[in-house]
């Protein structure tokens, strides 16, 4: 997509990088080239493989195959220490710092530049740290525990630490994800200053407006593949969005226009620690999509409706009646169900059986004279497993032995058994195979057809377009836009989610 402007070898060149996690391909033949003194964006949707590539370059993850060259010489980056020796520093999204250690200790720990015997003298440490802290624009005492610094300053400290390790290449993974406006500005001016001093910066992000503000070039990843590298000066945000989402997927077709009934859930001015004044209505027979970047408040919307996060202000009405669920149990009694985003950590009991997981929400009705009836449980579960094509060797098999898709179906079965009027599905197809996705889409269609209200969160825009009647786009905890299925396009949704061009509703 571009011609080599100079014959000088790239500072860093990665070719044919592949990486599988279990059966899932995270990266398939990725190419990436970085020049001295540029800020190079690595951009793509959630799950495109940006962070995995960054971790491979930093030695935190080993690739299955592929080559990496630095200054034209092949480099073996097996561990984070190898990366440090080669002048590669990384700043993770979740900062890899130690809040209860002091700032000085955080600078010293794991730092090869300071390793001289096993004792670190405080005077020497101070002399060592000062220039790097000044470069990063930090003025603080080395004796303070890191935890006393606000998060924005911790980010700057992470940069100072990387600089003190003589980083020529600095990888930043979603560096602004938890920063406020001021802190973002400080970070951007530091990034520009470092670039002018010849440091090459890889800026991992999916926020398009930021890319246009600090980056010189951008490499777009999609589904673990390199789509292309573009000069920022010669492109538009629309072009980048097209590169990020432009895929073709064969899907089951959505049913014709659904018939909708009364309002089953209405949300008015809902505000929590993460959400700001969210309002919408959900009707019987409707599938409402929720789009937005990670951290935009998608899961937090579920948490608020399901009694997990306290509601600061706003009114929820179930079929017209105001409710204020303070626990999942209460929300369930009001006819609201939720399948969490992280099925391993928040959804399933991995060592328990398919049957035990499936009937967990309806156990009390499976008793006779206080004892659980296995036969009653089995016949109840069988009714819903047929509807979602759940495949397992036996319902006595432990859930941990099933594939991701079937695990997700067990979680769905649990809620289909309870049969709530409103079901919030938080990214139900994350990391599952195409066939299982189609089964889940069909289950969503069925729910709508039987008059339930469904809220579907997804990171995959084609999925939202396939399943939903309306799509709510969240950004920074607010409703950025609402689109009817007929008028929604991937480009419009992405634009609203990233605020690349204004389309506020």
């Amino acid at each position, binding site marked *: 997509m571009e011609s080599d402007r100079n014959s000088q070898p790239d500072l860093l060149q990665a070719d044919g990088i592949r990486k599988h996690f279990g059966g899932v391909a995270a990266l398939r033949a990725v190419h990436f080239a970085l020049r001295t003194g540029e800020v190079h964006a690595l951009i793509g949707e959630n799950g495109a493989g940006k962070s995995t590539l960054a971790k491979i370059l930093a030695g935190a993850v080993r690739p299955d195959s592929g080559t990496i060259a630095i200054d034209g010489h092949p480099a073996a980056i097996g561990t984070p220490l190898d990366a440090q020796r080669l002048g590669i520093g990384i700043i993770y999204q979740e900062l890899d710092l130690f809040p209860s250690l002091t700032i000085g200790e955080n600078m010293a720990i794991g730092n090869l530049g300071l390793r001289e015997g096993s004792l670190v003298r405080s005077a020497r440490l101070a002399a060592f740290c000062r220039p790097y802290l000044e470069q990063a624009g930090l003025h603080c005492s080395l004796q303070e525990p890191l935890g006393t610094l606000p998060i924005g300053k911790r980010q700057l400290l992470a940069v100072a630490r990387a600089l003190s390790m003589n980083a020529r290449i600095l990888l930043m993974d979603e560096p602004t994800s938890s920063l406020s406006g001021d802190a973002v500005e400080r970070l951007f001016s530091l990034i520009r200053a470092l670039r002018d001093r010849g440091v090459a910066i890889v800026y991992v992000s999916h926020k398009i407006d930021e890319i246009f503000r600090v980056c010189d070039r951008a490499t777009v990843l999609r589904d673990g593949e390199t789509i292309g590298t573009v000069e920022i000066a010669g492109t538009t945000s629309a072009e980048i969005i097209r590169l990020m989402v432009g895929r073709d997927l064969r899907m089951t077709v959505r049913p014709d226009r659904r018939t909708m009934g009364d309002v089953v859930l209405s949300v008015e001015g809902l505000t929590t620690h993460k959400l700001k004044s969210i309002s919408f209505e959900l009707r019987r027979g409707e599938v409402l999509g929720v789009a937005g970047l990670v951290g935009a408040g998608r899961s937090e919307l579920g948490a608020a409706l399901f009694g997990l996060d306290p509601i600061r202000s706003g009114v929820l009405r179930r079929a017209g009646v105001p409710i204020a669920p303070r626990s999942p149990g209460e929300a369930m009694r009001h006819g609201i169900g939720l399948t969490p985003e992280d099925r391993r*950590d928040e959804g399933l*009991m991995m060592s328990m059986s398919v049957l035990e997981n499936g009937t967990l929400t309806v*156990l009390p009705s499976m008793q006779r004279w206080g004892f659980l009836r296995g036969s009653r449980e089995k016949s109840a579960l069988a009714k819903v497993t047929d509807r979602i094509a759940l495949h397992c060797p036996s319902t006595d098999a432990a859930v941990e032995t099933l594939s991701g898709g079937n695990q997700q179906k067990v979680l769905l079965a649990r809620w289909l058994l309870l049969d709530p009027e409103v079901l919030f599905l938080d990214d139900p197809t994350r990391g599952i195979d195409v066939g299982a996705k189609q089964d889940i889409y069909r289950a969503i269609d069925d729910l709508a057809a039987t008059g339930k209200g469904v809220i579907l969160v997804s990171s995959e825009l084609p999925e939202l377009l396939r399943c939903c009647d309306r799509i709510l786009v969240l950004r920074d905890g607010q409703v950025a836009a609402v689109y009817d299925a007929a008028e929604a396009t991937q480009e419009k949704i992405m634009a609203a989610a990233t605020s690349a061009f204004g389309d506020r509703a």
Partner: protein
Amino acid sequence: MMGLLRRAQSVVALLGILILAAIVSPTASDGARIFLEAGNLTDILSLIGIISLAMTFVILTGGIDLSVGSILALSTTLVAMGLTRAWQGASYSSHILWAILAAVAASTLAGALNGVVIASLRIQPFVVTLASMIGVRGLAKWLSRNENIDIGFGRDVAARFAEIFREKAIVIGSYVGAAALFWVLLSRTVFGRHVRAIGDNEKAAEYTGLPILATRIWVYSLSGLLSGFAGVLYAAENHQGNPNAGVAYELDAIAAVVIGGTRLSGGKGSISGTIVGTLIMGVLTNMLRLNNVDSNVEMMIKAVIIVLAVAVQRAE
């Protein structure tokens, strides 16, 4: 199928130890193997077996109860105090009944207190039960003024109590009854299913609306109840209420549960496993003592068995 094999494996281990014990058993003057005599076989089961049943529930929720030995001591002290106190006009049976009820109720309350603190203040079970292990022991010693309360051999109510409750049939019957009850509770009731679900994945249990708080409180209450009941049997067996009784019982109970294949982090395990674990420890102890093995060597051998049992299960 794998589960069945694994369970069979621990039963095979138990049979192996039983056969070994019979072979190495010293013989009596008439040539009979002492290990196999009825009087000896009934000795295998100790009070720790009863405590291990409730400990299984505690560990299944991902918790631990270090206070069981101290609660046992509190219970023996209370029951002995109750029985040695004069109660004009009461019949023997109601005096005995009320003394037992008071001791068991106090023990259950101590367990419930553990549960309330653990569940509502969200402090680690290890810390909370470590504190009550110290505190309840202190209470037992303070109540008894740090002295054993002897139950005589005469014709008074206390002696009558001891005579009844040291009967092997009562002790073994209690264990069998409690084991059956807890087995049903775990495998056939909503409560048992909740216990395992919470231990397997507490966060998911929260997201499913399960009664986490109540379940935890119940589990520690049951642990207190069985420890208290074991304390009553201890008083009868030893003819005294002893505030220093039950030291390190928690460790033997945890060992029996772990040998029985229950995962220490919770969610996975069974009462049948704990029964086998209890018997393995019991037979081993009995075998070593019959052969006059130094009790310090006995501890070393038990240490090896615990690690070995868990290592074999891990390899599965």
